[in-house]
């Protein structure tokens, strides 16, 4: 589907028509993108939004002429500044890339060459397109780093990427992409890997530079909140086709297509929390947990000070209750999870699970009691052994507990049914499942041991929003049915608001705020919580969205 030309607008900077990209043989569908068309006007922000496999990134890379050799553009036209660039000679594309079209990527840490200095990498793009004396290149490198608000550009230019934080690395990428003042910036999920407050800063920076440079932005994202924050116009993609396209206001507030409506409805938002469950005895109670990591070397002559990952954390979670642990990277939430699992030794503090002094158990007793607390990890692609069948994955824990094989298989099958998987899953391997299904297998693996406490560490963070909603619903259903105490660790405040009864807000190893989820997010008291809530992208839109009903997400 293509948009018709709009007589009221000036000629488009970028015009894509009927673009098709073929997938290699053996893929799940013949085309990565099948005949899409859209335009980007000068100075505007066009967001391409879609879930995994929608073809949104392929579209961005096709415009840049950077598709991998296995993907071929088979039809259509890409006109940039009035010129056809599809199939343009390599030298012509090279002159365009960097100079007229800049690009930033999802993982800035991976997009910077680890063995070259920051200054070198910024200078490279300038030297590729302009013959300038070395001092002038240096002056422009420093000016570019200063423009993206990086502190001490001179020192920074001499350092290597790994010394920078994720937000700083993305700022460097922006400085590189904008070094030659391109007319179009292509941004492929540039804030997905960042903390929410850093994300807000990067989005603000892109907006400021866009206004100053009169630049157009083609922004690829899965996050409708981000879209609501920045888009002038929106293209919604699914399975390589455009579902609908239009102004941001129209798509977000009056979507015409059912798919768009479902996508919007699946976005978690405040106000989804259920009424407080009746008070029950605590399943897990922890007091004064501390853990300090020795500082690693920070160069040849320095050593960083030790990091207090947990600086006296106390918490309690009752049967059938969900406790949310929220905070940004480095706040200590994952260390807390690993310490509660007894995967990382605590430095101090104690905790009990249903009265059992779990933190004090020695090795043989610990192995016997491990079934009491189980964990679901973030990445379902990394947390399941690819060489084991699902039956083995789910029954190994039972075998360790001494359950006979036949009995273990029976219970595994039951548990797979409970998480919504077909019994035939038992004999299959993890790669045969989608991300959401894999996470169900991981949940089954945890639950088959009949734990009293289940820790979900960012367990829905890597899932598409519609799948995320389903897995959240599954967690809630299982919690209620098995009266589990659920500890839900997430960086995503909206997800926490959706599923948690109470939340702890952590920062630098300390709990800065604690309370019922609804209260904490509606009226945060601590400045840090206030900053987190304020940084949620698209919160104004989320708050007023009329299409959303506060009902729990539908099951699959």
């Amino acid at each position, binding site marked *: 589907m293509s948009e018709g030309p709009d007589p009221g607008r000036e000629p488009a900077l970028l015009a894509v028509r009927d673009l098709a990209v073929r997938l290699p043989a053996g893929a799940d569908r013949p085309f990565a993108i099948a005949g899409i068309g859209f335009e980007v006007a000068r100075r505007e922000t066009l967001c391409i939004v879609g879930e995994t496999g929608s073809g949104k990134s392929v579209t961005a890379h096709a415009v840049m002429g950077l598709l991998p050799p296995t993907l071929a553009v088979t039809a259509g036209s890409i006109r940039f500044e009035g010129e056809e660039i599809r199939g343009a000679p390599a030298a012509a594309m090279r002159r365009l890339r960097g100079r007229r079209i800049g690009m930033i990527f999802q993982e800035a840490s*991976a997009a910077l060459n680890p*063995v070259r200095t920051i200054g070198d990498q910024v200078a490279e793009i300038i030297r590729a397109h302009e013959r300038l004396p070395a001092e002038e290149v240096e002056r422009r490198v420093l000016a570019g780093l200063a423009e993206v608000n990086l502190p001490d550009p001179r020192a920074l230019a001499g350092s290597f990427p790994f010394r920078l934080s994720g937000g700083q690395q993305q700022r460097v990428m922006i400085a590189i992409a904008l070094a030659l003042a391109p007319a179009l910036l292509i941004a492929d999920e540039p804030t997905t890997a960042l903390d929410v407050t850093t994300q807000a800063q990067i989005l603000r920076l892109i907006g400021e530079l866009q206004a100053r440079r009169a630049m157009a932005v083609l922004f690829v994202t899965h996050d409708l909140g981000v879209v609501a924050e920045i888009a002038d116009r929106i293209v919604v993609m699914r399975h390589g086709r455009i579902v609908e396209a239009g102004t941001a206001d129209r798509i977000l507030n009056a979507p015409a297509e059912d798919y768009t409506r479902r996508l919007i409805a699946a976005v978690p938002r405040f106000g989804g929390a259920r009424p407080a469950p009746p008070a029950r005895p605590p399943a897990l109670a922890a007091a004064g947990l501390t853990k300090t990591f020795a500082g690693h070397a*920070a160069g040849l002559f320095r050593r960083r000070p030790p990091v207090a990952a947990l600086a006296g954390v106390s918490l309690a979670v009752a049967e059938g209750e969900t406790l949310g642990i929220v905070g940004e990277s480095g706040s200590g939430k994952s260390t807390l999870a690993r310490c509660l699992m007894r995967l990382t030794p605590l430095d101090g503090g104690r905790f009990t699970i249903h009265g059992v002094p779990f933190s004090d158990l020695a090795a043989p007793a610990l192995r016997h009691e491990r079934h009491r607390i189980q964990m679901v990890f973030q990445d379902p692609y990394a947390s399941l052994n690819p060489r084991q069948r699902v039956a083995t994955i789910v029954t190994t824990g039972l075998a360790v507990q001494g359950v006979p094989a036949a009995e273990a298989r029976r219970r595994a099958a039951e548990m797979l049914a409970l998480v919504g998987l077909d019994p035939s899953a038992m004999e299959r391997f993890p790669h045969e499942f989608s991300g959401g299904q894999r996470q169900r297998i991981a949940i089954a693996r945890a639950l088959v041991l009949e734990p009293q406490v289940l820790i979900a560490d960012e367990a829905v963070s890597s899932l598409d929003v519609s799948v995320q909603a389903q897995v959240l619903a599954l967690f809630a259903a299982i919690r209620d049915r098995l009266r589990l105490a659920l500890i839900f660790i997430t960086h995503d405040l909206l997800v926490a608001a959706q599923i948690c009864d109470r939340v702890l807000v952590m920062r630098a190893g300390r709990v800065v705020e604690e309370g019922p989820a609804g209260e904490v997010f509606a009226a945060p008291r601590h400045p840090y919580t206030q900053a987190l809530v304020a940084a949620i992208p698209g919160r104004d839109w989320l708050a007023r969205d009329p299409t959303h009903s506060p009902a729990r997400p539908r099951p699959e």
Partner: protein
Amino acid sequence: MSRLSYIGERLFRSVFVIFLIMVASFFLIRLAPGDIVDFLMEGGSPDPEYVAALRRSLGIDRPLWEQFLRYAGGLLSLDLGYSFRMQEPVLDIVLARMPATLLLAASVLAFALVSGVALGIVAARSLGRWQDSAVTALSLLGYATPNFWLGLMIVLLFAVWLDILPPFGMTSIGMGYTGLAHAGDVAAHLVLPTIALGTHYMGVFARITRATMIDVADMDFVKAARAKGITEAQVVWRHVFRNAMLAVVTYTGVQAGHLVSGTVLIETVFSWPGVGRLAYDSIASRDHPLLLGTFLVTSVLVILINLATDIVYTFVDPRIEVKG
């Protein structure tokens, strides 16, 4: 921690490694039947009293633990013992042979690195085309061919049939070359042993280079480099090759020990007057102090090469933090 104190600490720890090697090889060697006196008396019908006196004078009639303590004590003052067969202190003999082995090893490494990395780059840049298949086949052949057999074959081809390269030794006997002529003579003698031993490592380095170049070419920063509009040659050289070399440097260190042991065989095949040849001769003659001496000196050498690799690594990869 500074780079210097890092090196100091590594060296200090190496002392223990060398001590363990010394203990193990001392006792392992003695497990084999026979000693130097048996070797010297071989074929004759010696007077038993003379044999006993000889053993006594060499100290090898004492209990093993006592011999060990005396040997270990000598090591503290860098005394590696005395070779009765060569009539010289072991350390002097081994050190005199060391330059030849180092020259051969350096030559093999240079040949293998340059040709292997070049082949690997060609293969990675022409992925799936005939050049790639050719390099892959060649490297498989290279590291699957036994080096002594390859050595004999190339001697046959270049020295016997074509008669363009000297087959054995390190210098032409009786020519009395000096200066440049001498260097040229040694270089000509180096060619065949270098190819014989280096072909294996060439294959290994070609495969490693090819594999890491392909891996690195897939990384985001290479895509980001292309997005800058730099030329393909710049993308490959500055971004892909530079990062792929990290794996090659690591692997060079790993291969160093292997390479030194590989010289034993090749030095024997080519009568190269190095430590490897010396070790072979001392096994044959049950010259235990000399054999132990070659073990110890080559162990030290391998440890030093590994240390050098690690130090080089801290320069080529800025992310490596020097730590204890």
